[in-house]
């Protein structure tokens, strides 16, 4: 590449600040005692404690999965802290009561909990470390009967819903990280859309890991009742630290008959520095269950984290249900991503679409891993998979692991894949029209990702495009 490209400097992670608030943090280590303590700190009912303990005991019997195409040193689960809450948190009546430092943090993140988002029609449930500190637009939502609150609140205010659906899509025994999360999850978001209601606004949660060495184990549960519609946005950032932090979240989506859940993620956790020091281990289990005629659509833009391990999936349980997965995963420097989806076709005439765009730069390693499974009774099932990789530079890697299993004769699956290299010709063409190298790369890459970006809500799409530009700055050399 030309020298003008080489001289581009890496832009520093701009969300890498630490907020100095007094935290209520547990000593490191995980024991049954810790699980009990977390539960009692949150004043949880007995059944939930029992559920956590079952998960904890199950977790003890499980081993960390090593099949993903990623490398990292062994994690010492006894060295991590499993609970951290800003001490100042009491039940809050309004935003004025929120610690100004926290609000300043959100401001730096570009999230305004106040007027701006109100005007934009976005209700934000912000998760700061483990406790939800402020929820807006609650009143407007409650007019429509929509419940949107922190997971802890939901446990107290809507125990029947939590008891019915918690673990119904991702059981605590599902996998190592899901079991860990089930034992120690501290907070998260809960959302319920009643029958036939179209949620009047986009719901949004911003996650942020703050306290050092605190694994964040949030848990999100979204239930769309029959005929309901909801679009949910999740954004993630974390401060810059030299040690690795574990993030093992669980997201469960329940789409009852004829409902639609659209779940969009822009993940920009700290990725570590250029040498691969620090950064988040993002080991996340996301899955939805679509009942008859329901639709679940996952859109993700993954630009951050040292390691990403996640497969937002859909169980197409009911007849005619629809599952979609649109993904952009970017790795630069020493980042590693092993991500993709599972589409499990159970019901008749179920349909799934997978569009995956992987971009690898620097020494990044990007793997697409996907499973399309059509069960014997899923007659007339259809799947279309398109899996494109783009390479920037010559030290990075792109890998594809598609698994397709079809157990009947009436179904059809298609798989298309391509790999391309961002060309010097393309960059020069843009430069010859007055665009800088950076601008050129961001233009070419966002063109490559267009099919996915168009699935994102407008403001998220812009943010995603900017993040992509930042992540890839200095990547051509």
């Amino acid at each position, binding site marked *: 590449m030309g020298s003008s490209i080489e001289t581009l400097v890496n832009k520093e992670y701009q969300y890498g600040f630490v907020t100095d608030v007094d935290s209520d943090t547990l000593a490191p280590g995980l024991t049954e005692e810790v699980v009990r303590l977390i539960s009692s700190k949150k004043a949880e009912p007995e059944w939930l404690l029992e559920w956590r303990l079952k998960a904890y005991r199950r977790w003890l019997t499980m081993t960390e999965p090593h099949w993903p195409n990623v490398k990292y040193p062994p994690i010492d689960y006894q060295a991590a802290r499993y609970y951290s809450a800003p001490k100042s948190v009491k039940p809050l009546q309004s935003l004025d009561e929120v610690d100004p430092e926290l609000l300043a943090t959100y401001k730096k993140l570009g999230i305004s909990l106040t007027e701006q988002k109100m005007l934009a029609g976005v209700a934000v449930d912000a998760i700061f470390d483990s406790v939800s500190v402020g929820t807006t637009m609650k009143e407007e939502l409650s007019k429509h009967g929509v419940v949107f609150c922190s997971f802890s609140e939901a446990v107290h205010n809507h125990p029947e819903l939590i008891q019915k659906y918690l673990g119904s899509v991702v059981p605590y025994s599902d996998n190592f990280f899901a079991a860990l999360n089930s034992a120690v999850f501290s907070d998260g978001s809960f959302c319920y859309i009643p029958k036939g209601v179209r949620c009047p606004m986009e719901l949004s949660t911003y996650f942020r890991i703050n306290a050092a060495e605190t694994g964040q184990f949030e848990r999100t549960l979204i239930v769309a009742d029959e005929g309901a519609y909801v679009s949910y946005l999740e954004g993630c950032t974390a401060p810059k630290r030299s040690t690795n932090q574990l993030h093992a979240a669980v997201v469960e989506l329940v789409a009852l008959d004829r409902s639609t859940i659209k779940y969009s993620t822009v993940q920009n956790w700290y990725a570590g520095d250029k040498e691969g020091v620090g950064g988040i281990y993002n080991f996340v289990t996301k899955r939805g269950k679509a009942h008859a005629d329901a639709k679940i659509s996952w859109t993700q833009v993954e630009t951050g984290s040292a390691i990403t391990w996640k497969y937002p999936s859909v169980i197409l349980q009911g007849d005619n249900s629809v599952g979609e997965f649109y993904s952009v995963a970017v790795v630069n420097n020493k980042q590693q991503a092993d991500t993709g989806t599972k589409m499990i076709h159970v019901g008749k005439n179920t349909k799934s679409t997978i569009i995956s765009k992987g971009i690898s730069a620097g020494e990044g390693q990007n793997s697409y891993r996907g499973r399309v499974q059509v069960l014997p009774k899923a007659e007339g099932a259809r799947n279309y998979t398109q899996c494109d990789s783009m390479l920037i530079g010559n030290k990075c890697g792109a890998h594809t692991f598609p698994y397709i299993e079809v157990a009947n004769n009436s179904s059809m699956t298609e798989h298309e894949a391509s790999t391309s290299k961002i060309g*010097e010709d393309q960059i020069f*063409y843009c430069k010859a029209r*007055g665009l800088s190298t950076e601008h050129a790369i961001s233009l070419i890459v966002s063109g490559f990702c267009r*099919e996915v970006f168009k699935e994102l809500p407008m403001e998220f799409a812009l943010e995603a495009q900017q993040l992509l530009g930042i992540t890839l700055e200095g990547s051509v050399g």
Partner: protein
Amino acid sequence: MLKIDNIHARAGEKEILKGISLTVNAGEVHAIMGPNGSGKSTLAQVIAGHPGFEVTSGSITYGGDDLLDMDPEVRAQKGVFLAFQYPVEIPGVTNAYFLRSAYNEIRKANGQEDIDPMDFLDLMEKKIKLVDMDPAMLHRSVNAGFSGGEKKRNEILQMAVLEPKLAILDETDSGLDIDALRVVSGGVNALKRADNATIVVTHYQRLLNYIVPDFVHVLAGGKIVKSGGKELALELEAKGYDWLVDAA
């Protein structure tokens, strides 16, 4: 406007331009002709700043400034435009978006605000008529799946929108049928002004029936072996290049 002084350039180990000097003034049209492999396209690419070529000696000034010292995008922002021989495809980026980005970069470099997107649409509507292009092309990805002729028209559309001071057309005529050739050269002629200049790189004389040059230069073996007026092109048409190449 443009002063090329004894320029030498190579690609890898191979020297391609071996001492070229050329002065282009505002209001002039220069044609660069010559056999294949004579260095015509290399000269065009060197002026635009292609990183694949290394200038080993000589100088190029543009409006009095050292052109070789500028990044390609700076050259473009200052009004240098290269119509590519092989326009590049950028999948997923619409023509309109690409052009607006380029247009705004040039405005920014001149201390102007971004153009209002609606105003830009009006501008495009006007310019697209110049090249007789289907407006639907604006919403297709840059050059992706375009025919050869469509790509060349698209280059001229970009030129019409960006209004360069110095336009270099690199074999814009190759691969064009006679109708397209007429449209493309009509577009070029319509953009001609007293304060801009055009360099037309071509292998064939036929383009010069439509774009009439003030000067014709023949390149052979990396050097200009003959310069003259427009009648030189006709002479070349009749006699071929051999007599000049042999003489050199």
